[in-house]
């Protein structure tokens, strides 16, 4: 085992420990813990036994193990981006709903308090609503 493998293995065991502790403390759902543990295990396996990636790659019809890793990481990143983008859009919409609600409530409060002499309204407007 060379130095790089030793260091990487240490990182992976640390990650595994962190995942397990987060799972035990109930911070992360069990299913998510399992997914992360699988990822760390596969990572560690690929580091300690590099030939394994080659075997999988050849089985899939890809020439080299490192190519397989490259393709997989690009795939994961794209999926990740899409997921984050979807989250971002949803958040964006939620902020808009919030801002809209505040704008309407503010206007209605000002109306009921009859503050603004600059915004004349007559009674028929609110009667229309009924």
């Amino acid at each position, binding site marked *: 085992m060379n130095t790089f493998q030793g260091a990487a293995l240490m990182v992976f065991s640390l990650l595994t420990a962190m995942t397990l502790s987060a799972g035990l403390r109930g911070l992360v759902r069990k299913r998510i813990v399992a997914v992360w543990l699988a990822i760390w295990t596969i990572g560690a396996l690929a580091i300690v036994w590099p030939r394994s990636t080659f075997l999988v790659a050849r089985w899939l019809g890809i020439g080299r193990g490192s190519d397989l890793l490259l393709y997989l990481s690009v795939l994961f990143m794209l999926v990740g981006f899409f997921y984050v983008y979807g989250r971002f859009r949803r958040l964006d919409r939620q902020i808009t709903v919030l*801002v809209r609600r505040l704008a309407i409530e503010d206007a209605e409060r000002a109306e009921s308090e009859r503050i603004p002499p600059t915004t004349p309204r007559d009674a028929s407007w609110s009667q229309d609503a009924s």
Partner: protein
Amino acid sequence: MSTSEPTALTQTTPADLTAGASDTSAPVVLPLDVRERTAIVIAAFREARSIGLVVRELRALYPRVIVVDDGSPDATADEAAKAGATVLRHFVNRGQGAALQTGISYALAHGAEFLVTFDADGQHDVADLPALIGPLARGEVDICLGSRFLDRRAEIPFFRRIVLKAAVLFTRVTSRMRLTDAHNGLRAFTRKAGLGIGLQLDRMAHASEIVDQFYRSGLRYREVPVRIRYTAYSLAKGQRNSAALKVAFDYLIGRLTR
């Protein structure tokens, strides 16, 4: 409306209503009761220079003007309020689509029967409103969309014309509504049509989205020629031609991730 006896001014006769039909030569004024039931919704961002004039022009005939100030750092809200509009404030900028939806929701909650969307930069003409609201008041259609290309008076800058025509093609491909002008901010629709609108695309792509939603509502619609006043101010303030691609992207992503 109040059920008090109609005065000569507020009485609506069929003749009054047909007056706005096709004749555009004489100035047409809609009956007061129709104008009172109409809410004009304006989304404004950094329009302190023009909003006062626009609101005053509208308020001379239409008492219900709702300005949604979309988080402008300038005096847009004050100017609009001074001119007599009901002002709603987005305290964070959320985009024109979001602001229009806020105004529409407010107008519907306050009993508006006819709704108009109008631009804040002075590019629309108050004189076009009777031709847009008239068909709604007469019960002919539920949606009237302004089209600058149906108008003989149109003086559209060359490149703007090309971009707008491309937008029309885009809309024909993505929606099934056959329109001559896809991105015109001047529209009038009934309460029924308004209740069917739920704009989710906060920025400029709402123009396509609103057309989609109108189309899916299955309500009757019509295009009405309107005049767009391209002034140095409105061109500088408005969308650059180059923004068109961004809008198209926003719209397509919006449809994918809905």
